[in-house]
């Protein structure tokens, strides 16, 4: 049975879902002139109403614990339960951010150690955990890039070089940080074209933003050359940590020459995506940039941890109200302790093994535009047989009928029918083999019964949606529905 009620539609006047102690203190009335003259139209429901409602709503979602989730560039790995339990300990959740320093040493230890372990893993000197998400980390990183050049009196460096295969967030972050993005065409495999890069390197370049491996899963083998070219031109290298997973314990962005990077704890370090947040996007920098990190700064001394609210005179400033998403980095910290030094390289190795295995198992029926070894993810450019008219979108929707989350589709933009597959390290060979079987059966069905594939999905709670209708006639709240 499909549950389609909104919480407002099960509201019954007079019901309530909370309790309060008997009042012991006399009522105080605020001045009438400051009060609203109506009552906010919130629903009135019992506790069981709420529990049933959101439980039924939850059934309309697809989580990692249900099935395979090979979303490229999103690293949908298992979110361990112990992480959740540890971050929920009252000794962490009940701490006010302005408590005296000596009453929050445990939390400060977690902050400091997490950033220190990230430094070790990435080869950069120091991290801040204050940034809330990957995009937030990018913004902070680019602010640091700009602040660095300005601190040297170099005000004309405004250009940020971004490959055309990059995610749209990269150029958007550059604009928001007051920089200008300059797109460079990439090679067919999405790697940087060194000659094209040379052509744009001048004394106006602030830096370059790269993911490595890139969005097609290809390691930038000229990275040392690229780093030298950019540094020689006076620019800095920014590492977008979206694809860090296949390098864990294998190679470090800092050693490659990157000066600034962000990490998505909700990708590489197993914290849940939560349907779109909260994430955490720590930003790491090399030694010469540490003083630009945002404030407040958590510091370690012999006598314990302290918080420097003012930061260095060169700090880019404050970018969050407090100290970032503690509830998230507590989970990443727990994960790092669980995985440990000895297993870290296997995260990289097995995710890479899984991706190459899928690639080799399907390339006879799906078009593989980039031959050769990939890292943790790779891209197909639609079906090999294009005559059926079955598009990538159809394949994605058909996968839904087999209880599998589709891969990332239509990204990177450099491939018209891109299907970007990332099978994280904790997926077993059995799960992966089933995915391969399903992908092959869809390819077969595309030839035998293309209309069937184009009409998918069939087993989901709703079918394909009219997105144009939603955008032309925006209904964005319950009241709009009532007025319709």
């Amino acid at each position, binding site marked *: 049975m499909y549950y389609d009620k*909104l919480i407002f539609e099960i*509201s019954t006047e007079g019901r*309530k879902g909370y309790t309060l102690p008997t009042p012991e203190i006399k009522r*105080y009335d605020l001045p009438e*002139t400051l009060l*609203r003259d109506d009552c*906010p139209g*919130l*629903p009135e429901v019992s506790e069981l109403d709420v*529990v049933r*409602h959101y439980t039924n*709503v939850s059934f*309309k*979602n*697809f989580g990692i614990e*249900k099935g395979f989730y090979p979303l490229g560039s999103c690293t949908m790995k298992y*979110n361990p339960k112990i992480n959740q339990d540890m971050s929920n300990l009252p*000794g*962490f959740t009940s701490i*006010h951010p302005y408590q*005296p320093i000596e*009453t*929050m040493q*445990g*939390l400060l230890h977690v902050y400091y150690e997490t950033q220190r372990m990230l430094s070790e893993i990435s080869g950069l000197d120091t991290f801040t955990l204050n940034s809330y998400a990957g*995009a*937030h980390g990018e913004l902070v990183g680019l602010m640091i890039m700009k602040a660095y050049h300005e601190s040297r009196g170099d005000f004309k460096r405004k250009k940020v070089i971004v490959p055309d295969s990059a995610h749209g967030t990269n150029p*958007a972050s550059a*604009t928001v940080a*007051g920089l200008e993005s300059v797109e460079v065409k990439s090679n067919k495999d999405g790697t940087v074209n060194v000659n094209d890069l040379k052509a744009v390197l001048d004394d106006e370049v602030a830096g370059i933003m790269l993911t490595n491996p890139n969005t097609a899963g290809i390691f930038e*083998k000229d990275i*040392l050359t690229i780093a030298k070219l950019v540094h020689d031109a006076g620019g800095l290298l920014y590492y977008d940590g979206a694809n860090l997973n296949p390098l864990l314990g*294998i190679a470090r962005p800092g050693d490659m020459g990157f000066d600034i990077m962000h990490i998505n704890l909700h990708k590489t370090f197993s914290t849940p*995506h939560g*349907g*779109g*947040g909260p994430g955490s996007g720590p930003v790491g920098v090399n030694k010469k940039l540490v003083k630009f990190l945002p404030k407040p700064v958590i510091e370690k001394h012999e006598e314990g941890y302290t918080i420097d609210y003012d930061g260095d005179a060169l700090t880019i400033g404050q970018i*969050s109200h407090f*100290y970032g998403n*503690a509830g*998230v980095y507590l989970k990443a910290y*727990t994960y790092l*302790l669980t995985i*440990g030094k000895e297993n870290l390289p296997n995260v990289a*190795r*097995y995710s890479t093994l899984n991706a*190459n295995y899928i690639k080799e198992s399907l390339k006879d029926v799906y078009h593989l535009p980039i031959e050769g070894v990939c890292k943790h993810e790779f891209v197909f450019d639609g079906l090999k047989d294009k005559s059926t008219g079955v598009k990538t979108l159809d394949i994605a929707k058909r996968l*839904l009928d087999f209880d599998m*989350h589709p891969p990332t589709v239509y990204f990177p933009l450099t491939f018209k029918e891109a299907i970007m597959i990332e099978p994280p390290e*904790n997926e077993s060979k059995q799960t992966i083999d089933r995915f391969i079987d399903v992908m092959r059966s869809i390819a077969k069905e595309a030839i035998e019964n293309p209309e069937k594939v184009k009409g998918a999905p069939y087993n989901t*709670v709703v*079918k*394909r*949606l009219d*997105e144009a*209708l*939603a955008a032309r006639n*925006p*209904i*964005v709240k319950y009241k709009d529905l009532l007025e319709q």
Partner: protein
Amino acid sequence: MHKYLPHTHEDIKAMLEKIGVNDIDALFAEIPKALLNKDIDIPSSMSELEIFDHMNHLASSNKPLIPFIGAGAYDHYTPSIIRHLIERQEFLTAYTPYQPEISQGTLQYIFEFQSMITQLTGMDVSNASMYDGATATAEAMFMACAQRRKDKILVSQTVNPNIVEVIKTYARYKGIEVVMVAEKEGITDLESVRLTLDSETAGLIVQTPNFYGNIENYSEFKATLDEHKALFIINQDPSTLGHLKTPRAWGADIAVGDCQTLGVPLSFGGPYIGYMATTTKYMRKMPGRICGVTKDTDGKRAFVLTLQAREQHIRREKANSNICSNQSLLALFVTIYMALLGKKGVYEVQQRSIDNAHYLEEALLKLPSFEKVYPQPFFKEFTLRTHLDIDTMLKKLEEKGYLGPLPLRRYANDKTDLVTFAVTEKRSKKQIDEFVSILGGLS
């Protein structure tokens, strides 16, 4: 073998065979040798039992105190069922709702969240949430500047200084000029707004209840701003909106704030959740996700991310904001909170905060060591002058298990003897009485 890594020797062998290489390291052959195998100083893998011990030890080396402080993080009551519901794997482990057919759960609660935020604020449209209240305010500044094509913003001195800091950071790099508007008797001075406002101004940012706890009165603000077509941005604690006049009623073009006050645990400052709401007129300039209603091919009602042409993945370098995700799970948290409280509860719960705060103020003013500073009405937070040594006071309170008021000396040279208290519905009369008697003992 590790519990998160399932491959057996046989699995690996079979997979390598399919790929056509002899060992896994061959898959990393293109990485320059000089980069490989650096020693990394992180601990060895720990078992669950060891982690329990370690984390419990760390948690117990924090000392929870009973807060009489707010300053952006408030100790409100969290109904027990919220955590159980938001930790359902369907919500917790799902990706951003890009595949709407299997994300109707996330999309539906975002729609409910938007509906509730618009009910509280009186605005026409809300997005799916922002990182926190401070960044939401900074994003509102970007939105106003983009809309008006101006690069100057006014910010009231009564706005929480941490929010001002974030605004200034965002403004500095984007090339926006921030001009502070003076306060008068603890609220934004309209006269100062008039003097600072000019044709180059994109908008004004104010906060109510403000940093000192005072409730601001925005009569005549809108008309003043309209003279220069400047946008009115109000940052307001959403938990006060069961009582107080809405941003819409004051004429706000953009309403923002932090929903931490809707039952979200203190958690050392995060994760919290910002909100942003605006009028239909500016809907297409708003950053972040927005969920709308549509139909599927069978005509069934369904939810979908909409107005995506605003967003960074489409606009790229022309986007007004680089924000991708939101604080989705926290949006679910506060949606459930608002559903449980309902239209009566949101008023009743905060009436207790109001009662408690005024009871505390009255008791403190009976002590010789405290006196009133501002003649303004307040909600759950208020500022007093104290003759006590502030460090001694805070230390004494800490010894008894209380987290004292916020000293304002860090934020303003002329406020070295001012302290700001916050009291929520969670404080019992017994706690408040004990708190007062500790302070009374110092006088």
